[in-house]
């Protein structure tokens, strides 16, 4: 796309790309460096003569130790992990079933239901969190992991369904018909013939759902109140700040460690994640 002199390549390609990468990643570098910087350096005003922002000569694990030993951080990690895994699993089962039904079966109102599920995908959590907090309390789910395990699927199922629908539609009908002629029931044909082919789609949907539930904030903030029930984003926000005092070292250490599970899952399945992301948008 860019032809001609070498300088043009630099001006129109390498420099802008490097700028993007730098700006997009700098906050993470800042997170890491803050997490290992001793307090004495951390709270040195920016206009102090010995302010050295980009490096530290005395890295410390003190903030991480504080986080793991003096706070409930490991409990929050465990909570978040359980909630994210279970709600992802529920959403995958529901999404696969619903996606299959909408892509393959003839029944009344199929089109309307498909549209309905798509519309719920676009309902933001902030529209419903107030009545939902009431409902969660009435169902006696308040302050338990179930409050989130059961509500997260509301924003995970719709895109799982849409993603799976796309996958199922792409699988030729003949495959299934062959199995049915050989005497397999509809359900068995779906389970043993279609599902194995759709594994990449299921993986994409699952990874995307996992990162979304790990990221969720407002439901967790409103539905949970005891410190030992909280998820990582809420725990870090509410327990590492006392009034106006921010404990920046532990906060950044928490942000760093709290990001690791998602980052790991993501790094192993980048391609699946990207497929899930673009698939979820295209619907």
């Amino acid at each position, binding site marked *: *796309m*860019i032809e001609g002199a070498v300088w043009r390549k630099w001006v129109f*390609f390498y420099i*802008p*790309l490097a700028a*993007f990468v730098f*700006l*997009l*990643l700098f*906050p*993470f570098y800042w*997170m890491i460096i*803050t997490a290992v910087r001793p307090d004495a350096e951390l709270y*040195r*005003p*920016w206009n102090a003569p010995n302010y050295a922002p980009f490096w530290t000569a005395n890295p410390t694990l003190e903030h991480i130790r504080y986080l793991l030993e003096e706070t409930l951080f490991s409990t929050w990690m465990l909570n978040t992990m359980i909630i994210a895994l279970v709600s992802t699993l529920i959403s995958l089962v529901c*999404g696969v*079933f*619903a996606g*299959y*039904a909408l892509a393959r*079966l003839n029944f009344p109102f*199929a089109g309307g239901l498909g549209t309905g*599920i798509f519309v719920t995908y*676009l*309902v933001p*959590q*902030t*529209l*419903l*969190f*107030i*009545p*939902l*907090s*009431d*409902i969660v309390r009435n169902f006696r789910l308040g302050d338990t992991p179930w409050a989130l395990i059961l509500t997260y*699927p*509301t924003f995970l199922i719709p895109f799982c369904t849409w993603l799976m629908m796309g996958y199922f539609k792409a699988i030729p009908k003949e495959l299934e018909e062959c199995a*049915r002629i050989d005497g397999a*029931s*509809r*359900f068995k044909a779906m389970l043993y013939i279609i599902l194995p082919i759709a594994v990449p789609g299921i993986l994409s949907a699952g990874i995307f759902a996992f*990162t979304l539930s790990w*990221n969720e*904030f407002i439901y967790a*903030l409103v539905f949970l109140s005891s410190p030992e029930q909280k998820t990582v*984003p809420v725990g*870090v*926000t509410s327990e590492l700040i006392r009034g106006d005092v*921010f404990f*920046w070292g532990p906060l*950044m250490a928490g*942000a760093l460690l709290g*990001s690791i599970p998602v980052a790991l899952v*993501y790094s192993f399945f980048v391609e699946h994640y*990207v497929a899930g992301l*673009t698939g979820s*948008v*295209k619907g």
Partner: protein
Amino acid sequence: MSVTTTAALRAPEAAGRGRLKGLFEDERRLAFALLFPTMLLLGLFIAYPFVKGVMLSLTNAKVGEPGEWVGLANFAKIWNDAIFRTAVWNTFWYTAVTTVFKLALGLWLAVLLNRHFRGKAFVRAFILLPFIIPTVLSTFAWKWMFDPTFSVLNWSFYKLGLIGGRINWLGDPDLAMASVMIVNIWRGVPFYAISLLAGLQTISPELHEAAAIDGARPWQRFWHVTWPLLLPVTMVVVLFSVIQTFADFQLVYVLTGGGPANATHLFATYAYQIAIGTGLLSEGAAISLAMFPVLFLVVVVQLLYIRRVETR
């Protein structure tokens, strides 16, 4: 049709092997069974709360008090509430400005990434990090970078000679909104870039070559070949992101909490403050329901657009 007849013919045989199996040979029953869990969860936690939210907004319920029917009093009250009006204005402004920047920068980045270069897969993977790392956690990194006393941004701009004194990023009412927007754009650009890149990759390079042979300059090729073909994906990505941005909560909650002096409230953060902070559930429900007409409009546009593209 032939499928249903074979199913019907086989029904007695299946019933012999087990009632359950025979039950699901019928397409409608199987569809119902497969959709039931989804319908149950969406009904209980989307449809029911929506109805309940509407009812709630028409009462004067507080936390722990069911309240009485008050009609549209809550809506009348927020209509005359100066902070609510600021929040409405902020939300529209926030959505408009960030969407323009996210689209422009995202498109630029997508075009850059659409070339072949060494380490491309690596760069693409890293670039998505702002989008996948939990928003609240990365926003804290920004809050720390914006800290008036310890800000690395102030230090950098000062050393570069761009500023003479300190900038109070989140403490100044005008700057605070801009700061929140910067973080939103930072988080959103990768999403736009990767989605648009997926769109760009479906455009055949031969079209570009043909245009180039016909003498089209790079900019003309982009404008007359790439852009029209990219438009459907762009539309969906933009509408999608508009909904998310319009209903945003986390960024403002973490960065400013709606302050200074309520200057950065959005619908969602103000609803949270009123409903959870002060316990006026019904008024909070009314504030978040006030988002509904706009969201509804965007969803309708999106549905119509998707339908048009699909039938084309």
